[in-house]
């Protein structure tokens, strides 16, 4: 039984890598559901960590417990095929001698226990029903990767591991596969550990974020929190921003504007992004947020939300970043000049209006 949001499996790994000069030393207890993203630069050890969890790479020392089952400790060391996991590689790695259905059923036939997911269910979930009788050689890159995800899920894993599953795909194909990934946590009751070096994938998918550098965890926690942390490692990325969870609540077809309800107000963004009622995560870039002391009435900026300043941090000589509270729990960031900060007399606790340009909310 997996309880949502309760860490019920632990992951503890100590390991020497032969490739590089540093050693991978990690001690993690991860949530039992949703996307846990391992994020870091190439060569930081995140893929090695994933391979250790899968049993494809053997750490010198390590403890891996998943949902009460010990995969590895001082006395036990299960082989990869004895671990109830699904693994999606960077390249789809389908078996070319089998057709799509046979690929999907490869792990299903060998699963230690049958789950509730069937071939039909998975094919529908990943939009691959029309491909079932095809040869793998005749699939596009995005289709192959979706089949690979389905194949992993049909083996009824207790844990799904994904190693940069989008990095070998071009921009267009990435956007074709991403919505299927976003849907996974709602359809599955298992945790997903996802490795990437792309911040855009972190923003779109992560629930829990683990940032790795040179084999060490340098930050770990809820993704919203880490994005807002003005001193944290993500603040070094030049595009500071905040993630806000939204529900699509309307669509104005005259102007082609989607209405999103978030904690703390309503946002409008151009084009129809999703059906009404669906959940979307919106990234609000700090550079696209401007502040004023009174509610502007004659601005081209369509989004204006009441906010409270909770922190101000100097970014460089000219710029600073303001952390703002919206509604009950949501927070966003605004990047403004120091001149504006002094001109408006911004300080912690001050009530302001945050203006967000609708055009900036469109996904690139």
């Amino acid at each position, binding site marked *: 039984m997996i309880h949502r949001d309760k860490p019920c499996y632990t992951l503890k790994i100590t390991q020497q890598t032969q490739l590089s000069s540093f050693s991978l030393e990690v001690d993690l207890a991860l949530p039992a559901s949703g996307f846990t993203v391992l994020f870091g630069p190439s060569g930081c050890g995140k893929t090695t960590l994933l391979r250790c969890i*899968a*049993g*494809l790479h053997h750490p010198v020392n390590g403890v891996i417990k998943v949902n009460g089952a010990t995969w590895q400790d001082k006395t036990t060391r299960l*082989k*990869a*095929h*004895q*671990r109830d*996991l*699904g*693994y999606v*590689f960077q*390249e789809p*790695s389908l*078996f*070319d*001698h*089998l057709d799509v259905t046979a690929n999907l059923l*490869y*792990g299903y036939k*060998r*699963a*230690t226990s049958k789950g509730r997911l069937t071939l039909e269910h998975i094919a529908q979930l990943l939009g691959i029903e029309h491909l079932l009788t095809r*040869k793998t*050689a005749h699939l596009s890159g995005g289709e192959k990767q979706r089949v690979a995800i389905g*194949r*992993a899920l049909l*083996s009824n894993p207790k844990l799904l*591991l994904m190693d940069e599953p989008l990095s070998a795909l071009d921009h267009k194909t990435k956007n074709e596969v991403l919505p299927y990934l976003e849907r996974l946590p709602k359809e599955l009751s298992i945790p997903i550990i996802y490795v990437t070096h792309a911040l855009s994938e972190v923003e779109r998918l992560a629930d829990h974020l683990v940032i790795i550098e040179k084999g060490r965890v340098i930050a770990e926690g809820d993704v919203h929190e880490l994005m807002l942390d003005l001193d944290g490692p993500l603040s070094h990325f030049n595009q500071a921003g905040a993630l806000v969870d939204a529900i699509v609540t309307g669509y104005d077809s005259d102007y082609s504007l989607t209405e999103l309800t978030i904690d703390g107000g309503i946002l409008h963004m151009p084009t129809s992004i999703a059906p009404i009622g669906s959940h979307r995560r919106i990234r609000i870039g700090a550079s696209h947020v401007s502040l004023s002391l009174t509610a502007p009435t004659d601005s081209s900026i369509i989004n204006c939300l009441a906010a409270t300043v909770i922190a101000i941090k100097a970014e460089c000589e000219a710029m600073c970043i303001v952390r703002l509270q919206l509604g009950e729990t949501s927070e966003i960031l605004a990047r403004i000049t120091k001149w504006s900060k002094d001109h408006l007399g911004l300080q912690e606790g001050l009530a302001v209006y945050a203006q967000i340009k609708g055009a900036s909310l469109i996904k690139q």
Partner: protein
Amino acid sequence: MTDAIFLSLQLAFTTTSILLALGVPLAWWLSRKQSFVREIIAALVTLPLVLPPTVLGFYLLLLLSPNNTLGHTLSDWLGGPLTFTFSGLVIGSVIFSLPFMVQPVRASFEAIGSRPLEAAATLRASPIDSFFSVVLPMAKSGLIIGATMTFVHTLGEFGVVLMIGGNIPGETQVLSIAIYNYVETLEWQKAHQIAAGMVIFAFLVMLLLSQVSKRQLRHGAL
């Protein structure tokens, strides 16, 4: 002549079967991690390609003779002498054709790489399971080429056979030796029949092989 044809085919089938059973696991072992020991074994396996068949035949004759401990033990175990018999021919052929089986199979195993095996392992397939369900089907073209090359090569073998088998009709006189015999006794007509038959057979086999590898390429299985 029919005796010689039958004997050649029997030898080729036996050798190919034994080499499928021995050569495929050996090729698999050689295709895994590089190590010094493996390199030595790989070089030994390749040796019959470059050695004169008479050299190989000469040493095999000495090794398999009843005066030698190994030959003695082996002939006791197999229930009969090994020199100038069909069993001896099979042993010689197996060793002589070893590279023809091991090289293409090893190459196709190496071409598979480790990724499909890792994928199979994460889908609960044990190493033995994935060898049969992933490795062998993926290496199909290499296996077909290896088996065919072994078969044809064994049919055309001369030097080793002559050294350890001699020229006993119905026992060790295979096609290539029969041709030699007919030429020696100036029976050109009969020599022609066998020789031309072998040329045609070898040509057809090579044509078939090129079709196999073409088909394999078209299906993107490489």
